[in-house]
């Protein structure tokens, strides 16, 4: 492990050194072994020769059993340093003579038995046995033992030389390899340096220098190619980054500008809304300010006309009538402009109620009879069989019909104006279609384009000839739109005209209005909602079943219902929730309905809340005298109740916006109002 983590330089040196040293040691060892083996062989030969010579010399002594001569012969061996023992045995194995180097005593390890001739190595000694013969007859055996001193010395010397040689050659190898390893390690180290530099400085422009054409050279080539590629990408990335930064900055600027614009727009919107409010207030005030002098002009001229006629000055009557008619025209102009501005401000509110279509048609025809007669026209009415009731804003339906009919009468001379009313089904919805047809002067295609625009009479000459403000059809159009209906015209010059207004049989108030009434309708006695008193009806009755029935019925009509079981509670709740209207029973324990009614009407804060009496007591005069708006006898006629409460729906919101008048323009409207206002009171009185 430690070896593996060594630097490539060291590794290379180490490998070279190890390799060369190993080879050297191996070859030296081979040589050494060979030399030692052959030297030993030489030594053995030499010892055997020695044994032959001594055997020959001592054969006579053995024959003659001359021990001294034999010992003398053996003693000659002193010259031979390596021979440490020499023994002559008699043929029977007994020692005859001997020689021991350095010692007079017998050594302990003489061979126990005599061997045949030959040599052997035993315990580091070389031992030789030789037969001593005389004239071909064996007379004894010679034993020589050598300690191989020469051999061991030679071996030691050799080993020493070898060690020195290995050391020297190792040093040499180290020197050479450390010089030569640079060939391989230097390029690699250079590559490593370059890499470190690149990664540390992120400078991809640096290149490694290629030294040789070997694998490392190719590696460096590859590395350089890689670097230049990275450099390219880096440059591209940096330029993209730069672009991105610029773009981000641009975007930020744009966002800033947009926010500024948004703020400006918001301010402008607030300003516009403020201006619109100011306009509405201004119009409301102007309406009042203009009407007051007009009142005097029309009134005085009417009065003067009567007086003049009485005094017989007929020639002045015409002039006075002109003043009157101019005044009335001015009044209708003011009303039209107010109506239109009201629509534009989005403040025109729909007051929905259910009514008989035929009744409205009759009213309008009656109203317009004089206008028709003026031009010698006759009005024909056709009502479809299925036409019955519709739910819409009756005032606006009247105005629509009035405008269409009066236009038809105005632009037709001695002709026929026919009104056709049908109930039809389109897209699964019921519609009431009013068609007003005349055979008058007609309308050209060009005139049709702007027909429903404000101040766009067919042309200026028409205004001079026929009069009018040019607002009638625009207002009619807006009213039809307000009730989610359609209006269109078919006409050609000289061929008369057919105006068709199609209104839903059941007009619904959409968006905020309906959401509001719906939420109040659903909410079960939520104080937060009842506080506003908006669309809330207070039911005062001691009979729980009546309370329950009324509550359910009125809830279905999209009112919020609060009920009280007695008079005291009723007055308290009336103060608390300030309801749109109150239904009141007469016969109640403790505080009866008359008392409650009296207290409600004498409280300035509650007096304006309409009260509908709902009772078994048949004393309508009393109720109305005390200030009740209507009087219903139990069991209650639900349709009647629905009509009565619907009349009041939405009136509270109008009460709140007192500054924004809903002008009852047009003669028809005023007459119709007179009729309803008048008949309503007389009807309830007569009942």
């Amino acid at each position: 492990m430690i070896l593996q983590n060594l630097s490539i330089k060291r590794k290379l040196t180490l490998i070279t050194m190890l390799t060369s040293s190993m080879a050297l040691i191996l070859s030296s060892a081979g040589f050494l072994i060979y030399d030692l083996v052959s030297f030993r062989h030489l030594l053995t030969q030499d010892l055997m020769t020695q044994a032959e010579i001594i055997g020959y010399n001592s054969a006579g002594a053995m024959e003659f059993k001359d021990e001294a001569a034999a010992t003398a012969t053996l003693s000659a061996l002193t010259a031979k340093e390596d021979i440490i023992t020499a023994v002559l045995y008699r043929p029977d194995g007994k020692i005859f003579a001997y020689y021991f180097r350095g010692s007079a005593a017998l050594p302990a390890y003489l061979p126990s038995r005599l061997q045949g001739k030959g040599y052997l190595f035993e315990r580091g000694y070389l031992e030789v046995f030789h037969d001593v013969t005389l004239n071909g007859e064996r007379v004894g055996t010679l034993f020589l033992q050598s300690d191989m001193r020469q051999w061991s010395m030679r071996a030691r010397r050799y080993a020493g030389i070898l060690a020195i040689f290995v050391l020297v050659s190792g040093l040499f190898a180290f020197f050479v390899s450390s010089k030569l390893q640079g060939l391989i390690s230097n390029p690699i180290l250079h590559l490593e340096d370059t890499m470190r530099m690149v990664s540390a400085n992120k400078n991809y422009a640096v290149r490694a220098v290629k030294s040789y054409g070997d694998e490392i050279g190719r590696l460096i080539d590859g590395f350089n190619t890689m670097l230049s590629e990275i450099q390219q990408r880096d440059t591209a990335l940096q330029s993209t980054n730069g672009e991105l930064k610029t773009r981000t900055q641009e975007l930020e600027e744009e966002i800033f500008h947009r926010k500024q614009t948004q703020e400006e727009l918001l301010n402008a919107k607030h300003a516009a809304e403020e201006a619109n409010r100011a306009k509405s207030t201004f119009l409301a005030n102007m309406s009042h300010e203009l009407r007051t002098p007009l009142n005097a002009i029309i009134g005085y001229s009417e009065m003067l006309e009567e007086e003049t006629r009485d005094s017989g000055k007929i020639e002045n009557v015409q002039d006075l009538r002109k003043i009157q008619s101019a005044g009335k025209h001015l009044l209708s102009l003011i009303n039209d402009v107010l109506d239109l501005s009201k629509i534009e401000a989005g403040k025109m509110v729909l007051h929905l109620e259910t009514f008989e279509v035929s009744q409205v048609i009759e009213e309008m025809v009656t109203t317009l009879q004089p206008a028709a007669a003026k031009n010698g026209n006759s009005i024909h009415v056709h009502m479809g069989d299925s036409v019955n009731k519709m739910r819409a804003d009756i005032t606006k339906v009247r105005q629509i019909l009035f405008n269409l009919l009066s236009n038809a009468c105005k632009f037709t001379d001695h002709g026929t104006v026919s009104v056709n009313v049908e109930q039809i089904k389109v897209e699964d919805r019921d519609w009431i279609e009013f068609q007003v047809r005349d055979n008058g002067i007609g309308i050209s295609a060009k005139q049709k384009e702007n027909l429903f625009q404000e101040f766009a009479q067919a042309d200026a000459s028409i205004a001079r000839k026929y009069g009018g403000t040019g607002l009638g059809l625009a207002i009619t159009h807006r009213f039809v739109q307000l009730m989610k209906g359609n209006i269109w015209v078919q006409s050609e010059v000289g061929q008369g005209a057919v105006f068709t207004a199609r209104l839903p049989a059941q007009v619904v108030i959409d968006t905020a209005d309906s959401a509001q009434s719906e939420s109040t309708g659903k909410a079960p006695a939520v104080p937060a909602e009842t506080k506003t008193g908006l669309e809330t009806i207070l039911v005062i009755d001691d009979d729980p079943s009546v309370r329950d029935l009324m509550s359910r019925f009125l809830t279905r009509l999209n009112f919020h219902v609060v009920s009280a079981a007695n008079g005291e509670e009723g007055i308290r709740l009336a103060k608390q929730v300030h309801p749109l209207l109150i239904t009141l029973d007469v016969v109640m324990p403790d505080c009866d309905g008359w008392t409650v009614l009296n207290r409600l009407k004498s409280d300035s804060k509650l007096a304006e809340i309409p009260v509908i009496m709902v009772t078994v007591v048949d004393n309508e005069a009393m109720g109305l005298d005390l200030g009740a708006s209507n009087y219903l006898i139990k069991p209650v006629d639900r349709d009647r109740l629905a009509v009565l409460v619907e009349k009041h729906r939405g009136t509270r919101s109008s009460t709140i916006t007192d500054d924004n008048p809903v002008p009852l323009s047009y003669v028809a409207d005023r007459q119709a109002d007179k009729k309803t206002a008048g008949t309503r009171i007389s009807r309830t009185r007569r009942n």
Partner: protein
Amino acid sequence: MQKILLVEDNEMNRDMLSRRLQRRGYCVVTAEDGEKGLSLARSEAPDIILMDISLPAMDGWEVTRLLKANMSTRHIPIIALTAHAMVSDRNKAIAAGCDDYDTKPVDFGRLSEKIENLILEKKLS
């Protein structure tokens, strides 16, 4: 002769209306503000009251309420006259206890019809 109390702050309108009503044969008493109207209603006991709604100080609604709350004047029919031709005014007028309602500029024919109707009803009841 029927007596009419006209409560109206605008001098021209007061003069014009009272003269026209007199020509129709009514006896006309006029008041230029609400308080005077209240006291005249009590002292003169008119057969009918024409009440302008936009009066200085005490407005027509207030005067009507006070008149209707008082036992001695409760029976006198009141016709409200407003310059603001608002639907809500009609309801307001009825709610305040007015017996009828008309908008200004007054259509004299229509107004006299209303006056006659109310006087007739009052006689019948």
